[in-house]
């Protein structure tokens, strides 16, 4: 246990060192309460920067992302809920702006496809295994029986 946690600490320290050059790329935003700060952090990590697309608002240095972070901050200070803030951005930019799209009719296939594919895989695997078992099974027992009987010979079936 102790060794594991030590390794983990070392790894975390290494990661922190790697991340250090980026830590100051974006001026941190201070929210008045820790609860608001936590919500703010969670929200900015959940939105896509529409300009750079593969980065979140939290990590993007472009000015549009800064404007969006400011808007999120102002909405939080105005007492808006997380859902209201998400709806605000989805109404203007579409679901694309969310890194985790919601489960709605339009995105259903996105969420269900992995499960469906897994089920198809499992069913075909089960089918193949059963067929193989059925093919091999009787021959085995046949052989076993003939061994038991002591009547081993190529002419048995003819």
């Amino acid at each position: 246990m102790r060794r594991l946690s030590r390794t983990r600490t070392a790894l975390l320290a290494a990661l922190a060192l790697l991340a250090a050059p980026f830590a100051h790329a974006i001026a941190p935003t201070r929210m008045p309460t820790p609860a608001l700060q936590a919500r703010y952090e969670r929200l900015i990590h959940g939105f896509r920067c529409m300009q750079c697309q593969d980065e979140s608002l939290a990590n993007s240095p472009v000015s549009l992302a800064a404007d969006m972070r400011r808007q999120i901050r102002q909405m939080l200070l105005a007492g808006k809920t997380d859902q209201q803030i998400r709806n605000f951005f989805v109404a203007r930019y579409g679901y694309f702006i969310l890194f985790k799209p919601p489960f709605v009719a339009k995105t259903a296939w996105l969420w269900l496809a992995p499960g469906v594919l897994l089920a198809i895989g499992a069913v075909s695997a089960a089918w193949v295994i059963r067929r193989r078992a059925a093919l091999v099974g009787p021959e085995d027992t046949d052989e076993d029986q003939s061994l038991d009987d002591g009547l081993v010979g190529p002419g048995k079936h003819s």
Partner: protein
Amino acid sequence: MIRYFIPLGVLVVVVVLLALGIHQAPRKDLVPSPLIGKPAPHFALPSLTNPDKQVTSAALRGHWYLFNVWGTWCVSCHIEEPELLAIAHTGLVPLIGLDWKDSRSQAISYLRQKGNPYQQIAFDPGGLEAIHWGVYGAPETFLVNPQGIIVYKYIGPITPHAWRHDILPRLPAGQTERGS
């Protein structure tokens, strides 16, 4: 015998699907706007050229207009400028500009140099109005109908081809022109 062809068939299906996926992949820089067919945002912003005056969506009601988001810092907007002047010259639809995250003095001297295609220009130095329109780059152009509904959005610099094939046919003026 046929069962040996099943994996091959599956492979062919997968290859065809992947090939289609690569060829039909939507351009990643063109994100469809959820605002098409929806009312354009209400706005009342200071005019770029006359800070005492306002450019408002209310005053634009009842008219078709092209809402063009630009900035002097935006290189593609410079490319688009001659086409905007050409569109303004046709007199078929007024151009309403949104000067996005810009400096007022720079924008004004830019328009003096290159010519001003806009009927009115709203000034949005803070960038909030652009967020309301779902803008993620410049230039972006929205076609708004007299009921205030966004009919079409064009992303990137408007080319003569885009004007003739994507924007003009959606205007009543363009439709009558085609019909005659």
